[in-house]
């Protein structure tokens, strides 16, 4: 029995191909990135070691700080606006009997579409003449509020955040719903008998019970906000005037528009470290003092 399950050759055969693939295309690029990040390199000539110049450059690069600020704006929008909406809608859906499946299926729909399609759909929604947004404002008689949305530095970032929320809210709702339905029925019923109904029940009972999944949702949206790239690239390409630049698009431009691969790699390392730090801080803040549940 044990002999069969201690077949070294088979173990090797099962583990090595996947591990090599993963190490080569997942871990090695990160190490390469670290290596390039301390060089000055245009992508063609030999990279020249320049110490921490690229990181120092990022610190004094005003455009980079704008990008970082936009990432933080992205994180705050996700955590303080999107997450409450997700929780409220999930609790509402979990409470209905009729149309439950219908709600679940429709709210999830945008998450199945590619970000490319979503970005293009919303470019059309924000389109100044024919777009939905300005047409609605015209119908409401708020013509003065119509604007270029994506072409206006004041609204470009917000417009992207709304699009991103439109795409992903349903995905998170499905996660939270699964957690709500996993709560043992007796607990909720006992709570109802003790007089917890409606919003009291949600606040005192449901939300504390699904706390782990809410934390997961927050963490996923934080990391999602830190790595946001394609949606910004397609909708505004960081414009106008860098007003919607995020770190990942800035990195992308440094490499492919300015051929500054050393600097681009330094930014990619910064993104990686920042994501890790924010996740860690968040983890420490939400840790339970005693009897920690596994999240």
């Amino acid at each position: 029995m044990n002999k069969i399950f201690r077949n070294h050759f088979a173990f090797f055969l099962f583990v090595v191909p996947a591990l090599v693939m993963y190490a080569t295309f997942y871990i090695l690029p990160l190490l390469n990135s670290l290596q390039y990040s301390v060089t000055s390199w245009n992508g063609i000539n030999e990279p020249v070691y320049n110490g921490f110049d690229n990181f120092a450059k990022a610190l004094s690069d005003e455009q980079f700080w704008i990008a970082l600020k936009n990432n933080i704006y992205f994180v705050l929008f996700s955590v303080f606006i999107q997450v409450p909406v997700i929780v409220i809608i999930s609790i509402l859906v979990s409470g209905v009997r009729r149309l439950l499946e219908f709600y679940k299926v429709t709210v999830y729909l945008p998450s199945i579409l590619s970000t490319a399609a979503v970005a293009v759909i919303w470019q059309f929604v924000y389109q100044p003449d024919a777009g939905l947004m300005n047409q609605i404002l015209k119908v409401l008689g708020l013509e003065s509020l119509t604007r270029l949305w994506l072409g206006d530095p004041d609204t470009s970032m917000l417009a992207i955040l709304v699009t991103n929320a439109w795409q992903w809210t349903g995905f998170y709702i499905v996660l939270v719903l699964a957690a709500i339905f996993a709560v043992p029925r007796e607990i909720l019923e006992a709570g109802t008998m003790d007089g917890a109904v409606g919003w009291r029940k949600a606040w005192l009972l449901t939300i504390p019970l699904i706390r782990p999944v809410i934390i997961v949702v927050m963490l996923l949206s934080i990391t999602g906000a830190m790595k946001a790239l394609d949606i910004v690239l397609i909708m505004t390409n960081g414009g106008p005037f860098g007003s919607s630049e995020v770190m990942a698009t800035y990195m992308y431009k440094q490499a492919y528009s300015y051929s500054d691969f050393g600097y681009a790699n330094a930014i990619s390392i910064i993104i990686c470290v920042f994501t890790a730090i924010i996740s860690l801080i968040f983890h420490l803040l939400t840790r339970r003092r005693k009897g920690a549940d596994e999240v």
Partner: protein
Amino acid sequence: MSYRARGIVPHVVLIIYVIVVLYPLFFVVNASLKNNSEITTNPWGFPHEFYFENYTNALSNSLFGRYFFNSLYISITATVATLLLSTAIAFAITRMKFPTYGKWVYGFLLISLLIPPASLLIPLYIMVKDIGLYNTPLALIIPYTAFGIPLTVFVIAAFLKSIPRELEEAGVVDGLSIYGILGKIVIPLTMPTLVTVFILNFINHWNEFILANLFLSTQQLRTLPVAIVAFADQFNMNYGALTASITISIVPVIIIYAILQKKIIEGVAAGSIKG
């Protein structure tokens, strides 16, 4: 508030939310059936008469079938490769008797959770150019396969841990080798989980834009997401053709979703929580 009214309030809120979700899609599809002037003058109503020229415009100059096929075979190849590699490794580290190695391998895979894929983009681009994969389908298939491995292993391993030992022991009694146990006992039991991770990986690859945009330059090789963005740039002011091409690209996905929605929703919830 009466009991009855209280029951209606959630539905009112939810219906509003559903409208917010669906109306932009409806607006695009509706616009695609109007001519360009009607799109601006009559944004709300149904088209006075169906105007299919937008679709012929959008389709005539494009290789839509080609893009669709590219997306399909690249996504399927990468997904199948990920599943084969991940099933083997998940089986080895959860069911075979090498607990120390198993833990190390698992820990090594966990590192991936700390790495945002966006930060791999540039080194990966350099690598793909250096090994001569640039502008070939393999430039997508290989990274997609690798990116899928960690999460797929986590989900499959979580399931494999729950299989009772007795089933494998029965296999041993029947004289099966380790390969026979994997192929004839473990994989059939794991099928539902494999379907779930197949769907998860497939959707990711099908929708991927950044690598597909960067690692392929020939128009013939384009995948659908890249093509949609190219359409959008090309038909910038031609609202009819633009909305028609959006419609063409999202309708197949919505149809597949309508058929498989239960499995997809289940899979996504399972994948994210276990991962």
